[in-house]
């Protein structure tokens, strides 16, 4: 026993855990003749100061080389404007998808016409310089069929500029960016309706409609408004169809997160709000700051929106067209029974619909409860016109006590809720930095077990959202949750005053929640994440045909093909059809004159998995990524005379350095 003393009580646990590991690996060994547990395992654990819990956590998260993760998370990349693709349980970063921000590795926004056009579509509609090169990505949403993730598309919003992006999960590339008309900020986005009929984008900070119509803050109540957009999604085309999209005008409260009803509540959407006080600040003039003005009232309003009814109203033409989109005026939304309010604990964040669509869970950040509303009770109250009054804009307000089902006391600062497959809910609790597990009511649990706090686990620190495996669908998987913490404080090796965020993986399969892994996120402040079973995704390994254009997701008529390479001059335009294969470009010499317009079409004619080529022209800020089969076009003016090598930026073969050529720009005489 002597040498185990240092391990103390934990030592026994290590023995048990290692014995279990040996048992399982031993079983495997008889089948596959794989290696034994190394004799030095105990010494490694001891030398590294690992507790039995650490070892168990390691066993639950380690994914050996060549093996794949069970789940994939799509995480907002926060300020980076990108999306992070992360494997679970390994928490390995698999990819960063360029979305709103130019991303050089993928050649996104560095010369390729296709990606340039996508980014330009998301620029500002007004102003001299309309360029936007960053985004504050918040809430990714996977496309759904019957309320379940279908693994086809992914959407994400840009809170800073009110934009929505569409990513095709066949190639994990951004296909479309829409600058939402009339709106300048959003937050309740993106959330999809159960068959991805619409991508919901709720606004955040009220502004005139459109935002470019100036109005002073003194006219806030009269001229400022909230907005919610229902972006119609054309699944066949894989694009948002703005001609079928519509907006609903709302009072100038600050709408927050939304969720779409499902199953029982299909056809409805729910959005939180804050600042129903309509505070506009003015700290510099001695007025109360917005944070005080916006939290004077006990309650804000949960917005209950009948989007099916809104569709009918749009079809009936009871809309205004503003900035090219149909807008249902506020008075029409009220008179047609599209919009209702319910009092909700102030300054709420998450509004989350339970898997059967029967309950709506709201978390007020300055409350200590989650408040659960019954969809049936809401419907009954609407039918009975049982309203406690109207807000200043005429929106009927349902009586809180008529529609509330339960309140569960969970802690200081509840924020966002997800669900498992056993009738439990998990809520992030911001102020006290915990994840709280609690039970749903009937029919998820018998009455005696309903609406009870089960357990809380500390997280590190200041948790914002959380995600559980498929935890916002009609059929959550359970298994894992991830706490998306805003602060990491002491969790990682210091890297300067700007700390990484901290994603903490939690095993929720046992009696007690178990913290498994900390993943630093050093690229921005991710807000929300969705986690899908990996086998629901069917990404391509190479593009289906040589000459494939990812922007159109079809073979390009103009794609250069082997044997068809050429250079043509027409006036001041030099057009080049080029192919790329290990380890050369063809052609390798491009001679132009200063001031010529150069149009380069390049196809990677490789068919092997992972045989990607880059194409960079020195000094011209051009870099493409050409995946096997992909074709792309670059257009630029050769305004800099001289000699500019171009080369492949991927280490594609032993002769990678030789995969190069020259752009010769002859000076004007």
């Amino acid at each position, binding site marked *: 026993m002597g040498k185990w003393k240092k391990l103390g009580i934990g030592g026994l646990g290590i023995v048990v855990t290692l014995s279990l590991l040996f048992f399982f690996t031993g079983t495997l060994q008889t089948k596959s003749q794989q290696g034994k547990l190394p004799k030095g395992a105990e010494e490694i654990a001891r030398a590294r100061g690992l507790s039995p819990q650490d070892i168990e956590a390691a066993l639950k998260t380690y994914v050996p080389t060549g093996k794949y993760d069970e789940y994939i998370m799509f995480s907002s990349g926060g300020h980076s404007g990108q999306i992070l693709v992360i494997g679970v349980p390994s928490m390995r970063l698999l990819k960063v998808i360029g979305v709103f921000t130019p991303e050089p590795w993928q050649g996104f926004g560095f010369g390729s016409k296709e990606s340039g056009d996508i980014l330009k579509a998301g620029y500002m509609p007004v102003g001299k310089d309309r360029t936007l090169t960053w985004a504050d990505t918040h809430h990714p949403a996977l496309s759904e069929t019957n309320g379940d993730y279908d693994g086809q598309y992914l959407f994400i919003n840009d809170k800073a500029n009110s934009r929505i992006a569409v990513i095709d999960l066949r190639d994990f590339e951004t296909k479309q960016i829409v600058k939402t008309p009339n709106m300048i900020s959003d937050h309740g986005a993106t959330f999809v309706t159960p068959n991805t009929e619409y991508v919901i984008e709720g606004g955040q900070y009220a502004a005139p409609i459109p935002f470019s119509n100036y109005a002073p803050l003194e006219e806030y109540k009269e001229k400022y408004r909230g907005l919610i957009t229902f972006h119609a999604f054309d699944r066949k085309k894989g694009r948002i169809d703005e001609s079928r999209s519509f907006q609903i005008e709302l009072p100038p409260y600050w709408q927050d997160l939304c969720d779409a009803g499902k199953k029982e509540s299909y056809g409805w959407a729910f959005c939180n709000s804050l600042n129903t006080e309509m505070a506009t600040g003015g700290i510099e003039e001695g007025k*109360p700051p917005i944070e*005080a003005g916006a939290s*004077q009232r*006990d*309650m804000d309003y949960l917005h209950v929106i009948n989007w099916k009814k809104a569709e009918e109203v749009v079809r009936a033409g009871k809309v205004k067209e503003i900035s090219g989109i149909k807008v249902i005026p506020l008075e029409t939304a009220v008179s047609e029974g599209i919009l209702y309010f319910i009092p909700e604990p102030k300054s709420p964040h998450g509004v989350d619909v339970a898997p059967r669509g029967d309950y709506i869970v709201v978390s007020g950040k*300055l409350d*200590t409860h989650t408040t659960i509303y019954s969809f049936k009770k809401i419907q009954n109250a609407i039918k009975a016109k049982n309203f406690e009054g109207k807000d200043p804009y005429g929106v009927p307000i349902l009586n809180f006590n008529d529609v509330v089902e339960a309140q569960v006391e969970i802690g200081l600062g509840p924020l966002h809720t997800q669900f498992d497959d056993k009738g439990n809910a998990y809520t992030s609790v*911001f102020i006290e930095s915990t994840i709280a597990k609690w039970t749903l009511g009937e029919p998820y649990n018998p009455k005696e077990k309903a609406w009870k706090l089960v357990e809380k686990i*500390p997280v590190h620190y200041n948790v914002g959202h959380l995600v559980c495996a498929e935890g916002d669908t009609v059929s959550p998987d359970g298994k894992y949750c991830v706490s998306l913490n805003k602060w990491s404080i*002491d969790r990682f090796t210091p890297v300067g005053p700007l700390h990484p965020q901290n994603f903490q993986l939690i095993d929720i399969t046992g009696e007690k929640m178990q913290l498994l892994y900390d993943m630093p996120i050093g690229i921005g402040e991710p807000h929300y994440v969705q986690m899908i079973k990996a086998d629901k995704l069917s990404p391509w390994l190479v593009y289906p045909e040589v000459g494939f254009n990812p922007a159109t997701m079809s073979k390009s008529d103009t794609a250069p093909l082997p044997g068809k390479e050429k250079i043509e001059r027409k006036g001041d335009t030099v057009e080049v059809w080029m192919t790329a294969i290990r380890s050369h470009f063809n052609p390798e010499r491009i001679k132009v004159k200063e001031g010529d317009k150069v149009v380069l079409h390049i196809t990677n004619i490789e068919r092997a998995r992972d045989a990607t080529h880059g194409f960079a022209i020195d000094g011209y800020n051009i870099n493409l990524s050409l995946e096997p089969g992909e074709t792309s076009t670059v257009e630029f003016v050769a305004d800099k005379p001289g000699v500019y090598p171009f080369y492949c930026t991927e280490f594609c073969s032993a002769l990678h350095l030789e995969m190069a050529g020259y752009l010769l720009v002859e000076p004007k005489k």
Partner: protein
Amino acid sequence: MRRLNIFSILLLFLITTTTGFSQNGYRESALSWQKQAKDTRKAVVGVLEELEKIGDKGNPDAKGLIEDTKKWLEEGDNALSKADKEIEKEDYEKASYDYNMAWQYYVKAATAGLNAKRVLTGQ
């Protein structure tokens, strides 16, 4: 540490019993926020006293968080003192906002204090 947990529970109770703008006007609202701000302050002071007894144990993160707790407490006290003067002058609207602001600073102090506790104890 047990006392720290008691203060956490007290804070939970105080934040549960939030109040706000009342239909009866700013006076009631101001008095209500005054009570909540002062009650929350007591709980924060309790957390801070316990943290000071324990000390930061040389942990720079805990030290920073304890400093933050003190700073937020001070900010809250400034707002509270401003509101007290306003209520004496029967300027209930301003008092209501400033008591609210004091309460918000105390909640921030509580967040920092609880994080310090988490850093020091893991719980």
